[in-house]
């Protein structure tokens, strides 16, 4: 914990405008309501800006930005279970793939419309998470991570081995034009809006959790689960609900992804690299915060895309180096770093290294 220097440079002279601004930045119990309202206001402005951005982009860029929104949603959903509650789920992509394949199967075999399929896929993902969470949420730390990873990998193998239902390794194709199609394809522009709305919902859920009693319960569980239980928090219920909610959001995004891709092969919707990317985005942005996943997702997704376009060979290498540097110099994530810096006036990155190294 860094010590807060209590001189006028940080607290400001009370009664002056500069002092009020500093108090606002720092956060006191009196201005909590105002801070939250400002937070929602900023979120709303960003959302409107994102809608407006669409008119400025060409089709291929629309697709790239849609992918960025997809990752924002995924990161915000992971943040619920991994960031607030501290249970890092390394099988999150399992819910993504489950939502995607449920949608594909319903649309192909039962000719259900996309919207209904997405709703059903969301519920399926949530129920599956509750089911799987019952034995697995008892595990902690790396063990929970590995167990959920195993579940995601097992799901992928099951999908590969049910070729009549899922097409197996040969993939499954959702009909998107002609009389076979239950819902016509939404178009790049349509998917832009869909992913944006899903991302907004995920971030909004994170925002609501952050300020509610439930959110405090989750943070309590993160810091010391036994103490939280002693305080009367029903930890099992809180964890399971959060896990299911996080899975539901991820499953809905998976459903949209399936429809966008139209042809699904089992490897990508269950790719462990998607989970790791989610974790990178949340941690670099600032886990356990509302804006963290958004900032992290935009930075990493856009950065990855930019690198891929401009350094055709070796882009992944540069990405690896950037991740290493970011993790060493800003392990608490950007949002936490910025709010600490605003509060204490300390900007040094080397301080981070000194704090966390052995």
């Amino acid at each position: 914990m860094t010590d807060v220097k209590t001189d006028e440079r940080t607290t400001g002279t009370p009664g002056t405008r500069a002092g009020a601004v500093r108090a606002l930045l720092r956060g006191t119990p009196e201005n909590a309501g105002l801070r939250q309202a400002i937070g929602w206001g900023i979120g709303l402005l960003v959302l409107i800006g994102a809608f407006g951005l669409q008119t400025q982009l060409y089709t291929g860029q629309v697709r790239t930005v849609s992918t960025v929104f997809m990752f924002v949603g995924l990161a915000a959903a992971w943040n619920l279970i991994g960031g607030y509650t501290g249970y890092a789920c390394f099988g999150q992509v399992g819910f993504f793939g489950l939502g995607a394949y449920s949608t594909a199967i319903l649309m192909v075999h039962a000719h259900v419309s996309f919207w209904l399929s997405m709703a059903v896929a969301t519920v399926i993902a949530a129920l599956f998470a509750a089911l799987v969470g019952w034995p697995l949420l008892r595990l902690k730390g790396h063990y929970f991570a590995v167990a959920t990873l195993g579940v995601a990998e097992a799901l992928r193998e099951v999908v590969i081995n049910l070729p009549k239902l899922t097409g197996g390794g040969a993939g499954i194709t959702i009909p998107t034009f002609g009389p076979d199609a239950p819902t016509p394809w939404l178009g790049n522009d349509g998917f832009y809006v869909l992913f944006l709305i899903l991302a907004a919902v995920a971030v909004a859920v994170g925002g609501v959790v952050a300020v509610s009693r439930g959110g405090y319960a989750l943070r309590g569980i993160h810091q010391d689960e036994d103490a939280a239980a002693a305080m009367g928090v029903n930890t099992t219920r809180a964890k399971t609900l959060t896990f299911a909610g996080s899975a539901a959001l991820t499953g809905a995004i998976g459903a949209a992804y399936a429809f966008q891709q139209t042809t699904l092969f089992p490897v990508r919707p269950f790719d462990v690299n998607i989970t790791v990317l989610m974790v990178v985005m949340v941690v670099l942005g600032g886990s356990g915060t509302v804006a963290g996943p958004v900032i992290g997702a935009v930075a990493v997704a856009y950065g990855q895309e930019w690198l891929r376009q401009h350094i055709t060979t070796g882009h992944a290498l540069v990405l690896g180096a950037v991740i290493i540097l970011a993790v060493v110099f800003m392990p608490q994530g950007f949002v936490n770093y910025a709010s600490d810096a605003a509060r204490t006036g300390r900007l040094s990155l080397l301080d981070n290294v000194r704090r966390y190294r052995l």
Partner: protein
Amino acid sequence: MRTRTLAGAVVAALVLAGGSACGSKGDAGGGSDTGNGKLILGASLSLTGSLAKEGALTKEGYQLCQDVVNGKGGVPVGGKKLNLEIQYQDDTSKPDTAGQLVDQFNDKGIKLILGPYGSATTEAAAAVIERNGQVMADAAGADDKIFQKGYRRTFAVLSPANQYAASMIQAIYDLAQPRPTTIAFVSADDGFSKTVTKAGVKKATDMGLTVVGEEYVPNGATDVSSALTKIKPKNPDVIIGSVHLAEGVAIVKQAKELGVVPKIFAETVAPPTPDFAQSLGAAAEGVLGSTQWTDKTAGSDKWFGSAKDYAATFAKMFNGREAEYHNAEATAACLALALAAEKAGSTDPNKVRDALAALDEQSFFGPLKFNDVGQNVTKKMGVIQIQGGKPVPVWPTDSAGAQMKYPGAAA
């Protein structure tokens, strides 16, 4: 107070959203890929990821095409000479990235696309091509399923998947004395390999061979011991592997370890690649492989000459290395687009598309002619056998380099 603020915010957002969701700017202007005397082609290739090796071979084929065509002055299109310029992007071997890259090419006005490596990525790209009104010359996606979807803007220069195993079975039937009677299949479980296996099983049954086993292994497996252990008691004369390189090497290696000794191995995709013989050493001797092209393939064209000329050009450009079919099929795809642009007299994608559909030309790669769904069914596949550590064409006999050795497996 918080709830009311929240509700008001949501309403405001919805109102504004309804107004501003009026769509993107659309295409960045199409058909402008001639700019400054250049014919720009887009290629989304797997430069990293699980298909990096094969993507690299495909890229070499495209590069050779660009160098040779430009060295001869460029493609004559409507009275002007245009230099080829191929822009590469890395799809990291992932189908969804491939689709996204094709969209991005479309943005920049690049409508003529060279295909990626592999049936999965090609299928994803083909869907986008169809939507955007682009045209794709498919170099390395052979799965018949791609062409059963009603797409009209993707044209595959390579022979379709159903030929891969069937051609080897025909070769064995024609040339192996005494003729074998039992055959077993080991197949990877991706779409392309499954299509190959199904067609192979049908061909074998039609020719009167008994199929004693059809085992599937996970795609990319380096341990196929369970499949081989199940096949061993059935003592097949021939083992056919519808696989890629990793599984292909594993089959031969582990068969030797487990004491599974058929009279001959025949595999798709793997044997013609140089890594196969290098990884297996002496154990690779006698393995058959199906190939899209050898340096004895009949046919020639004005850009690359005959197959032998192509092999010589390749060796000169790549330090004496031998060309293999992954390189050749890539060059052929690039050639098809160049020929079509020349015939159409324009780079407009619709005119090029029609010219491709009507194309009927001989080339170093064999005949280039597409049926009404875009597959090149006039071109036949060849069969090679590893002899002396190198792949040697053995079938069809009129373009063979040596006799097929049977039994082929090292005892």
